[in-house]
């Protein structure tokens, strides 16, 4: 990569920020321009629904790097500007501020956006998303003790917000269409544990609850009405019903997409000059022999590093087993691997103790673990999955053995 090369990064989130930093760390000397449609420089999203919402973390501490870093590293950071159109033949990106950027290499890191609630009233002034720093800054003054909060969607984001709001003294009701919380992402054992955890803290959880209508008055929602006829009065509404990849800039330019922008192991799209990373990318999942889209910090960081390595013709960083975490109340959940399509789940420990782990198997192979206040189980499973180790459900639930014993036993079997 010569010093007159121009790299444009569309999107200034965790993935884009990582790519820029990794390129400079790897010695790239050309131009880097990063364009983000949010006003803030790249920042961490996970604390938004946790410490930041609770007012326990200052805004500046969310930023991945201080502003000075971009200046010192000669990275042009254009915030509050979005990319409008990609012209692959001319190798240009047209921006919302009228500027057109030339590139030699383009990295698309446009992330994802919250799925909108498809109901009249969803645009009301007291209906909030949980995606961006601005979302939370607008929401925060409304999060006050005694107010009635209605959360639509019992996924991780919705439940994390429920925990934070509950701790701040709000009266919280969570609605979930499926017959259990976290239905899309985890097993019934975990769903039951989290439902109980929230109910113990005073949160009302309604599963199998279809929202039929939002009642409004003077442009603000005053109640949610369920298909069952139940009316839930509220002062504010949070929507957490999933996210959609921001792939349009690529698909409109003829780049192959399928629930995200299709990329290879080096994060390259079907245009060799264009890469896609983070939430917007649909990537090979090497530990699972398939591809998919990951919505996680791990993925954003990993692909940011992968793209930098490929551009610099360096060795591809080892692809880690996908991992995630969620903090609710005093419970830390750590997830290693992907549990979709599991055919057997076993529990190590006892959920009532607030410390246990669920191990997921498919065709006799360990594919994932949900570890609740159980870091040893998390880290062990992560290693075992990475090694594609042969380990039985009977061994992982054997509490006479420590996780260290189990790890050693399973790894010995590998050789």
């Amino acid at each position, binding site marked *: 990569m010569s010093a007159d090369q121009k790299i444009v990064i569309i999107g200034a989130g965790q993935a884009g920020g990582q790519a820029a*930093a990794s390129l400079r*760390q790897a010695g790239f000397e050309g131009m880097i321009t990063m364009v983000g449609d949010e006003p803030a420089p790249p920042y*961490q999203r*996970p*604390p938004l629904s946790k410490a930041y919402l609770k007012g326990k973390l200052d805004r500046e*501490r969310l930023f*991945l*790097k*201080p502003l000075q*870093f971009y200046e010192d*590293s000669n990275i042009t950071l254009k915030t509050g500007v979005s990319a409008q159109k990609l012209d692959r033949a001319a190798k240009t990106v047209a921006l919302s501020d009228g500027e057109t950027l030339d590139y030699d290499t383009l990295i698309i890191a446009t992330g994802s956006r919250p799925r909108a609630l498809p109901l009249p009233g969803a645009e009301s002034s007291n209906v909030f998303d949980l995606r961006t720093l601005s979302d939370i800054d607008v929401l925060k003054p409304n999060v006050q003790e005694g107010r009635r909060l209605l959360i639509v969607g019992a996924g991780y984001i919705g439940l994390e917000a429920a925990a934070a709001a509950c701790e701040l003294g709000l009266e919280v009701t969570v609605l979930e269409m499926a017959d259990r919380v976290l239905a899309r992402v985890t097993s019934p054992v975990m769903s039951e544990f989290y439902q109980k955890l929230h109910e113990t803290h005073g949160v009302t959880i309604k599963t199998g609850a279809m929202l039929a209508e939002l009642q409004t008055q003077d442009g603000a929602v005053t109640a949610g009405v369920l298909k069952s006829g139940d009316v839930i009065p509220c002062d504010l509404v949070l929507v957490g019903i999933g996210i959609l990849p921001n792939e349009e800039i690529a698909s409109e330019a003829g780049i192959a997409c399928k629930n995200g922008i299709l990329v290879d192991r080096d994060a390259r799209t079907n245009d060799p000059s264009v890469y896609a990373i983070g939430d917007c990318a649909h990537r090979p999942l090497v530990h699972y022999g398939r591809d998919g889209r990951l919505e996680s*910090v*791990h993925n954003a*960081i990993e692909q940011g590093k992968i793209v930098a390595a490929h551009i610099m013709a360096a060795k591809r960083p*080892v692809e*880690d087993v996908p*991992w995630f*975490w969620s*903090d609710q109340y005093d419970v*830390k959940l*750590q997830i290693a691997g992907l549990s979709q399509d599991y055919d057997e789940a076993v529990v190590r420990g006892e959920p009532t103790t607030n410390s246990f782990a669920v191990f997921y198997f498919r065709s006799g192979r360990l594919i994932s673990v949900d570890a609740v*206040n159980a*870091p*040893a189980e998390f*880290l*062990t499973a992560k*290693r075992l999955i990475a090694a594609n180790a042969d380990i039985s459900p009977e061994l992982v639930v054997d509490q006479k053995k420590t*996780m*260290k014993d189990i*790890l050693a036993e399973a790894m010995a079997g590998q050789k």
Partner: protein
Amino acid sequence: MVKIIYADHSGTEREVDANVGESVMEAAVRNNIPGIDADCGGACACATCHVYVDPEFLPKTGEQEAMEQSMLDFADGVQENSRLSCQISVSAELEGMKVTTPESQH
């Protein structure tokens, strides 16, 4: 401002002015210190901010909580002076402390 010195496994040292109240990890990331990945941003969820603390300063870095202990149990190359730098809060007492990063965080 508190002076913290970050050494990598090859011995190269970088000096940083850390703010009281931020973590030793945050001060490193802010200053682009290589070798501290901190993938989870300080949630004690990933063990990629592992450092070796100058033994003289170890007692001043505070007690390890159970979560940190367990995470360190499974990290590579753990020694008696291992800590997760996201769990060490910078205080005036740490002036001049040297921490060394391991060869790999994974």
